């Protein structure tokens, strides 16, 4: 699926990830809503809050309201045999757990594959491979997720493996291009300086390049997570489980309660994951990269 955020073909520095502009603009947004005030903090002054209260409370309270009202509606809903069957025996919990597991596992593999590959492809030795990678990335963006998944199901058989492979293949590209864009955007003079003070290539990478690229890599992680929550709904078509099962059961059997429950849980999970990732994005950003004077 293509769920949401794809990467801009022309502007891979700024994927359509929630929170970054889809524009050939600078990778660092000029005004972050939770950035610190302009003045340099005095050494013993309390550090400014990185996260505002509104950001911390708005979405969770919204989700609580939605979930509680769904629950209240379900307590009084009249379920016929088919609906009751589809929801009985903890199947809703099972679907939710499967969905979370699919998302977590695929995101883990996406990171393990995409970040090292991004580092490798930005080394001087592999620079020649860049146009090739870009061509593959563009073709990959154009491939519909459901088609990719269906092909993998035919190839690998029904089940979790096919679903996971499809999800990973689909999310690797945005994270890879974010990582590469992040490493490329580093100021060459800084790398020069790091080499100048006698750092080995490995030290330059781990102590200068990667920390500087953290914001963009984190944006890529967020993109991957949100994409994967979405693609995981398609796992249902290949026998991979997840909340998509409830949605597809609801559609094929024309049972609105099942359909709505599955959809609402999926939406809530997606928004929650995005919110958690946005918090991580703020908290894990190196202090030195925060907007200062």
């Amino acid at each position, binding site marked *: 699926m293509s769920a949401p955020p*794809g990467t801009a073909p022309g502007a891979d520095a700024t994927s359509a990830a929630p929170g970054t502009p889809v524009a050939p603009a600078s990778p660092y947004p000029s005004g972050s809503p939770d950035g610190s005030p302009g003045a340099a903090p005095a050494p013993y002054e309390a550090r400014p809050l990185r996260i505002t209260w509104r950001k911390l409370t708005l979405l969770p309270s919204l989700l609580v309201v939605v979930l509680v009202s769904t629950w209240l509606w379900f307590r009084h809903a009249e379920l016929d045999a088919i609906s009751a069957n589809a929801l009985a025996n903890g199947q809703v919990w099972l679907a939710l757990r499967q969905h979370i597991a699919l998302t977590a596992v695929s995101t883990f593999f996406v990171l393990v594959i995409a970040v090292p590959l991004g580092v490798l492809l930005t080394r001087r030795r592999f620079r020649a491979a860049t146009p090739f990678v870009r061509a593959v990335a563009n073709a990959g963006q154009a491939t519909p997720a459901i088609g*990719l998944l*269906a092909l993998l*199901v035919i190839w690998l058989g029904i089940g979790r493996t096919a679903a996971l492979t499809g999800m990973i293949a689909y999310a690797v590209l945005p994270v890879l291009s974010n990582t590469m864009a992040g490493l490329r955007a580093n100021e060459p003079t800084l790398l020069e300086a790091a080499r100048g003070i006698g750092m080995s290539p490995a030290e330059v990478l781990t102590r200068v390049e990667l920390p500087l690229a953290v914001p963009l890599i984190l944006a890529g992680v967020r993109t991957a997570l949100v994409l994967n929550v979405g693609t995981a709904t398609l796992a249902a*078509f290949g026998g991979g489980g997840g909340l998509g099962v409830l949605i597809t059961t609801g559609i094929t059997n024309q049972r609105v309660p099942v359909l709505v429950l599955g*959809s609402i849980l*999926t939406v809530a999970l997606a*928004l929650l994951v995005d919110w958690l990732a946005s918090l991580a994005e703020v908290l894990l950003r190196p202090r030195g990269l925060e907007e200062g004077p």
Partner: protein
Amino acid sequence: MGFWDYVGSYRERLLFDAYQHASAVLQCVVVATVAGVAIGVLTYRREWAAGLATATTSAVLTVPSLAMIGLLIPVVGLGVAPTVIALTLYGLLPVVRNAIVGLRGVDPALVDAAKGIGMSRARRLLRVELPLAWPPILTGVRVATQMLMGIAAIAAYASGPGLGNEIFRGIASLGSANALNQVLAGTLGIVVLALLFDAGYVLLGRLTIPRGIRG
């Protein structure tokens, strides 16, 4: 049956699905562009309004498309309606965001100069600001189109139009001789359409981006 034999013998059905796919995506992109640019124009001068527009549209984009379609079915039924609504909503974000970024990126001195030679607000917007903001907006439209190509395939599950039907036919007949051909035809068809649209946007950019600001 080989793939090309399959394509040959079902040529008409495939062409019809491809046509419907392209036409659904195109129409939704046009609506999303008009609405998105309008939202951008209305909000870009106020910080809170622009923030609200971007936050809302990006929240929409976070919602998985199958769930969005699932929530639309009880309201508008199966078929074309949920497809069109979902596609238009998903298409909004890239356009709105890039319209705001683009309009804000216009050099204030130019707007001032336009005011100085006596242009009204509407004329400034139409003759100066929007033409200058057009390249990023066009990028947004391109991103939106590529995304909608894939989402339209999923909408076929809710009886929507297009090549997604071919993919779901294949999934429904897993194990049969033609399953692979059907899925492959649907998937490759969408890839080809996406590439054709992309080429179309390059051409459109050539024709519509003012000569003075071409890179």
